[in-house]
C-alpha cells in the first residue's frame, strides 16, 4: 500500500536533489533543470495532498505551477541563449560581473 508518507518522502527527496543541483552544478541549463525538478517535487506533494484531503485545490495549484514553470522556461532559456551569444559559455562561474 502506497501511503501519503511515501509521496511526501519522494517529493522531499526530489526537492533536495533539486536544491543540491542548483547549489553545486555550474552549467546554467542543468541548474535550470534542477529548478524544474524542485517545482515538480512541489507539484507531486500538491497532488498527493489533494488526493489525501479529497480537495480540488491542490490540483488547481499544480496547473498554476505548470504555467509558471512554462513561462519561466521560456524566459530562462531565452536569457541563457542571450548570455551564450555574448560570452560563449553557460558556465555560471564565468558569469560573475554583477558584484561589488
Amino acid at each position: 500500500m502506497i501511503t501519503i508518507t511515501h509521496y511526501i518522502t519522494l517529493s522531499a527527496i526530489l526537492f533536495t536533489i533539486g536544491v543540491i543541483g542548483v547549489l553545486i552544478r555550474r552549467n546554467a541549463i542543468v541548474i535550470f533543470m534542477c529548478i524544474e525538478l524542485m517545482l515538480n517535487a512541489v507539484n507531486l506533494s500538491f497532488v498527493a495532498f489533494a488526493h489525501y484531503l479529497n480537495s480540488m485545490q491542490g490540483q488547481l495549484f499544480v496547473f498554476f505551477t505548470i504555467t509558471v514553470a512554462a513561462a519561466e522556461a521560456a524566459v530562462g532559456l531565452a536569457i541563457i541563449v542571450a548570455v551564450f551569444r555574448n560570452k560563449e559559455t553557460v558556465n555560471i562561474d564565468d558569469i560573475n560581473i554583477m558584484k561589488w
Partner: protein
Amino acid sequence: MLNTVALVLLFPLIGTIINGLIGKNLRKETVGCIACGAIGLSFLVSIVVFFGLLRFPPDARLFEKTLFSWIESGSFKAAFALQVDPLSSLMILIVTGVGFLIHIYSIGYMHNDKGYHRYFCYMNLFTFSMLLLVLSNNFLLMFIGWEAVGLCSYLLIGFWFEKKSASNAAKKAFVVNRVGDFGFALGIMLIFLTFHTIDFTEVFSSVSNEGFHAGSFTITLITLLLFMGATGKSAQIPLYTWLPDAMEGPTPVSALIHAATMVTAGVYMIARCNVLYVLSPFTMTVVASIGAATALFAATIGLVQNDIKRVLAYSTISQLGYMFLACGVGAFTAGIFHLMTHAFFKALLFLGSGSVIHALSGEQDMRKMGGLRHQIPITYKTFLIGTVAIAGIPPFAGFFSKDEILLESLTRGNFIYWSIASLAALFTAFYMFRLLFMTFHGKSRVDHHAAEHLHESPKNMTLPLTILAGLSFVGGFLGIPGASAINNFLAPVFSSHIHTEMSGIHTGSQHGEGHPYLMMVISTAIAIAGISLAYQMYIKKPDLPKRLSERFHIFYKLLLNKYYIDEIYDVLFVNTTKKGSVLLWKYIDAGMIDGSVNGIARLVGWFSNVFRLLQTGYVRNYAFYIVVGCIFIIVLTILGK
C-alpha cells in the same frame, strides 16, 4: 490734550518710514524737510502734552493711554500703553527739543554725505525709539525702546561703515550694551516673578502695599540688575568703554545719542524706578559709589586726551556719573535736572566741536587747532557759553544743576561723595577750558591745507548752536535753589506713596539743612580754580604742559592710554571669550557635533564595506543564501510551534 500723546511717537515713525523706503529717490532738501518736520511736529505735540499736564493739580498728573493690547499670555499682560507724568513729559520735551535742533544742524553738517537719507532715517528711528523708551508705561515696552535705541546707536556709530574703526566701534558699543541689557532683562523677569505684573504704576503701588521692607533681598537684586542695564546704556564703570569709541559716528549723532539723550536712559530708568531704589540702601550705595567713581575716573582721562570729541566723550561719562551720584544719594530731581541742563550744554558742545571739525575739513586733533576764535566767531561764542556752563560758573545752567548735586551729595550722602564730586568738578573746569584754549586761543597750529578752507558754518548749523547756547544760559533758572520750578514739577514722581523714613533715605524736594549759599561759593571757587589752572597752563605758559608730562611721565602715559582699561578688558574678557569660542568651535562644534554626524555616516560606510563582500557575483552563493534563509525560517516555524 493729553490724548494726542501718541502723535509724539507717530511723527518720527512716519519720517523713518518715508525716508527709509523712498528717501533714496527724493531730493536732499525733501529728505531733510521730512526728517526735521517729523521731529518738529513731535516737539509741538510734546509742548501741547506738557501744558495739558500742567492743567491738572500736581497730585493728579498721571495719565495713561493704552493704544492696544500687545502681549497676553496667562497672567502675563503687556499693553502698548503710554504714560504721561511730569518725568516723561519733561523727557519728551528734551528729546524732541534737542533732537529737533540737532536734526536741523544735521542738514548742514551732512549735506554732502552720500548716505544722507539713510542718516535721517536712522535719526528719526532713534527719536522714535527714545520717545518709546520714556513714554512706555511698563517695563517690557521700555525694554523695547531701550533695545531699539541701542540698535540705532549701533547703526549710527557705524554710519561710515567703510571705515574699519567705525564698524569696530559700532560692534563694541553693541556688544558692551548687550552685557548690561542682559542684567536689565533678568531684572524685568524678576520683577514679573515678584509682582506678577510689569506695569509701572502697579509695580510701584504693590511695593508699598505688600510691605516690602527696606533692604529686602529681592528688591536689592532687582534694582542691582536694573542698574547693570543702566551702567551699560549710560556708560558707567565698568561698562563705559564703548562711549569714547562711539565718537566714530557723525558728530550730530554724538551730540544727540551719545551725549544728550540715549546715554541718559539709565538715569531716567533709575529715576522712574525710584520707588524700588529707595527701598534698597545697598543698591543706592552702589549707584552713588559707581557714579562718583565714574565722575572722577572719566574726568581724569579727559584731562590729557587730544581728540576734541574724545574729551567731550569722557566729559559725558563724567557728567553721567554725577547724575548717578545724585540718584544714588536719593536726589532724583537733581539727577534729572542735571540730565536736562547737560542735554543742553553737551549737545551745544558737541555741535560746536562738529562745527570746528567741519570748518577744519575733518580735523579732530586739538594739537592741530588753535586761534580759531576769529575765523569762526559764532561757533566760538556759543562754545564758550557751553564751556562756562559745564564748568559750573553762575548763572549758567551747569552751575545750578551741578551745585545741587554737590550739595545733595554732602547733605544726603557723605563727605567722601562730596569731595570726589568736587575734585571731578575741578577737573571738568580744567579740561573743558583746556579744550577751549587749545582750540580757539593761542597760536594757530592749523596746517595750511585746512587753513585755506577755513570757514564759519552755514546758518542752519549756527542757528541751533545759538538756540542751545541760549538754553544753556537760561536752563539753570528752572532749578534755582529755594524756588526750584523743576523740583516742584517733578515732586509727585519722586515723593510718591512711599515714605522713606523706613529706608533712611530722604526723597522729596526740600533742600538739605547745609549752607546752600556757602556751597555755591565753594563750587564756584572750584570751577574758577580749574579755569585759571587751564589758563596758566595753556595760555600763559604753553610749554608747561609738556614739561609736566615729562616730569610725571608715568602718570601722563597712564592717563593718555585711559588707564589701559581697554587693554585690560581685552586680556580679561575679549581674548578669553575669543579663546573660549575657539575651543567651542574646535572641540564642541567641529569635534562633537560634526564628529557625531560624520561618525554616523562613517559607521554606515564601514558596515556597507563589510556587507558588500556578500555580493560575490556567483549565482551559487546567492542560491545558498536563499536556502539558508529558507531553512532558518522553517526551523523557526517548527520551533515556534
